[in-house]
């Protein structure tokens, strides 16, 4: 059947025909999009199988621990392809994001061999890695016998890939030569601006250029448009408050969370003059134009408000803005995206990033088989499937960003997204200092921010206290 079509798709998968040519060609052959999809899947299975023994672990069984997330949904939607390809059976547990990481900690800390692989963020591997719960994946990536030749490890965005590698030394540089690859990036988020075009037009303001501009733009929006507030920011007592917009702007001023001395000792770096200045402005921004109950705001409230038209913009994950521009959100189709550099002297945006990644449990009973899953799930075929057919933003492979279909999809429905990405991708990386007290530091940082916003403590004093407390904890843990 369909010999011509198979040839065409085969050529595409071998890289001989680009995607547009493929679709054109298929159209000419009278294929509907749907049947082309099926054929495409079938062929990609064949293509993958061609050069590598995917069936080596046939008959085995794996179990995954997944977060309730569009990325996981995209993977599950495509999972049959993997099963067909390898003959490995895969089951999975999905937990809501609110409790997901606690579940991971509970499972791993008890040494549970139930799960072979799981979703994680890079920050978490700073705990999981030293604790001995996850496996360094370099061994597999570099083994040609275990990794298929099309995997293209070099295709991953370097900044993202390196952010998932750490040598385990507190304060050690991410992606250093001796770093261990604790997890494989799957998709990531840059923290930039998503704004409501209608509201910006109505208030007659442009996209803020720097932090001072942001303060005034947000204030003007809030004043001119009734019933809304200027800018959505996270504020709960959690690390999640620090890592998006807040840290991205902070890093733009070249400020650090911790300082690493020559002998590898860590100390708090939040009480520098530059840091204090930035904190003051950020606190002012929240006080003047942030959500009224900012201190309870998590990802959900920030997104919900934007989608429901309660806020004019957010300084948060780009994919949060992406999700709010679709579905049954009231503001769907009215949102735009822009890179944001808080420092007027900075040349470009330097967003801190969150990376949804895949890690291998050290308690897995069959690591080779697990690696088969990991390389498939992070491989180019699934990445393309996720990016074009599902909501796999932001993709971590450079080839996807070059993909026309993907760029077109973004450009039509998500104005400014591609430009935003291109403008800040170079500066995008994890801005935290990797160290095992990450959550202690960030939680306390968030609590201090809350106190400053509530005017319980002045910014200067608050930061000094924070630095003092963090230094004490670092010492206690033998890191400072």
């Amino acid at each position, binding site marked *: 059947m369909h010999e011509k079509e198979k040839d065409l798709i085969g050529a595409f998968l071998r890289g001989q025909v680009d995607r547009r040519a493929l679709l054109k060609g298929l159209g000419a052959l009278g294929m509907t999009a749907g049947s082309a999809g099926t054929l495409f899947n079938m062929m990609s299975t064949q293509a993958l199988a061609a050069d590598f023994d995917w069936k080596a672990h046939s008959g085995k069984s794996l179990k995954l621990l997944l977060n*309730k*997330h*569009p990325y996981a*949904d995209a993977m*599950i939607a495509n999972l049959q392809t993997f099963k067909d390809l390898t003959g490995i059976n895969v089951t999975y*547990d*999905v*937990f*809501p*994001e*609110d*409790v997901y990481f*606690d*579940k991971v900690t*509970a*499972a791993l*800390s*008890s*040494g*549970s061999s*139930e799960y072979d692989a799981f979703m994680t963020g890079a920050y978490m591997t700073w705990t999981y890695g030293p604790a001995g719960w996850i496996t360094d994946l370099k061994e597999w990536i570099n083994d040609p016998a275990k990794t298929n030749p099309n995997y293209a490890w070099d295709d991953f965005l370097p900044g993202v890939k390196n952010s998932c590698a750490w040598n385990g030394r507190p304060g050690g540089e991410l992606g250093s030569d001796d770093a261990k690859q604790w997890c494989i990036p799957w998709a990531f988020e840059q923290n930039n601006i998503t704004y409501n075009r209608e509201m910006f037009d109505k208030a007659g303001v442009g996209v803020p250029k720097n932090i001072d501009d942001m303060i005034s733009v947000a204030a003007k929006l809030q004043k001119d448009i009734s*019933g*809304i507030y200027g800018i959505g920011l996270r504020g709960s007592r959690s690390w999640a408050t620090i890592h998006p917009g807040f840290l991205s702007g902070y890093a733009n001023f070249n400020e650090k969370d911790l300082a690493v001395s020559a002998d590898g000792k860590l100390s708090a770096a939040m009480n520098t003059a530059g840091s204090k200045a930035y904190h003051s402005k950020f606190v002012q921004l929240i006080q003047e134009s942030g959500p009224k109950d900012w201190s309870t705001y998590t*990802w*959900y*409230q920030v*997104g*919900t408000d934007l*989608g*429901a038209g*309660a806020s004019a913009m957010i300084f948060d994950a780009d994919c*949060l803005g992406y*999700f*709010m521009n*679709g*579905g*049954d*959100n*009231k503001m*769907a189709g009215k949102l735009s995206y822009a890179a944001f550099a808080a420092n007027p002297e900075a040349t470009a945006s330097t967003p801190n990033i969150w990376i949804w990644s895949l890690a291998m449990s050290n308690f897995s009973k069959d690591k080779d088989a697990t690696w088969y899953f990991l390389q498939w799930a992070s491989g180019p075929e699934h990445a393309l499937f996720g990016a074009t057919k*599902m*909501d796999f933003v932001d993709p971590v492979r450079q080839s996807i960003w070059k993909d026309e279909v993907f760029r077109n999809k973004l450009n039509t429905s998500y104005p400014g997204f591609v430009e935003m990405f291109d403008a800040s991708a170079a500066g995008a990386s994890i801005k935290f200092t990797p160290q095992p007290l990450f959550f202690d530091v960030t939680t306390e940082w968030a609590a201090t921010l809350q106190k400053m916003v509530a005017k319980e403590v002045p910014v200067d004093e608050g930061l000094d206290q924070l630095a003092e407390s963090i230094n004490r904890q670092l010492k206690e843990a033998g890191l400072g």
Partner: protein
Amino acid sequence: MESTSTPERILRGIALTLVILFFMFPIFWIFMMSFQTNETILQIPPSLSFTPTLSNYMALITGKLTTAAGTLDIAFMGNLGNSVFLSTASVAVSLLLGVPAAYAFARHKFRGSEDIAFTLLSFRFAPPLLVLLPLTQYFQWLGLSDTYIGLIWVYQLICLPLILWIVRGYFEDISADVEYAYRIAGHSWFATFRKIALPLAGPGIAAAGLLAFIFAWNNFVFALVLASASKQPVTVGALAFVTSSGIQYGQIAAAIVLSIAPTLALALYAQRYLVEGLSLGAVKG
């Protein structure tokens, strides 16, 4: 009561109205939300004008949830089933173990009885997290993690002490002579327990059982840490509506309504026991 004056009746009426307003309004609001989508729930200012939709309930029952980021599979009905099973089984086990123990503490002052009773109660006030965290490891070794048996066992920490202490009080309130009379009439202690003590403490047992059921039903932290997705109760499962693409308030509201339903039905059914029969006047009279 018959002699209550008019102003007092009015005052009582006002007080009761306020109480009902305070406790029932959120319920009413949740109920209303369960017929709305996020679009009408998230209005500024909030309003009651909306076109009711059954989509939330449909989503829960069919297990398909449509969000900004596409269609998600949800296992709400499975979660509901787990909740029913876990709570019922836990309370059943607690009653089986707790009622005889309560009887022993109420009727027999034996060596160490108060110590044993107190120890049993102390399980209730051990902070759940304290035992939970090491427990995950032991369950791993014992092969109990992610089993219904393991969960039901841990749920005994919630149910058993509550049942034990409430039921003990009811047993103590039964006149010992009534039981003696039955013993002397020629019946064994077990027959006496079954024919006299159990029926007379029945309302108390029903009430304690219902309260234990509610507490087991509402448990969150044990279920979260010890159960995999397939064994999850509603409390954990409902968080699935907190998706990365937004909180599905409508569905959470509908989930709450659906999750109250079994307990409420049970409470209404047991109403006689719960408030009317609970009073031991019948026993003492």
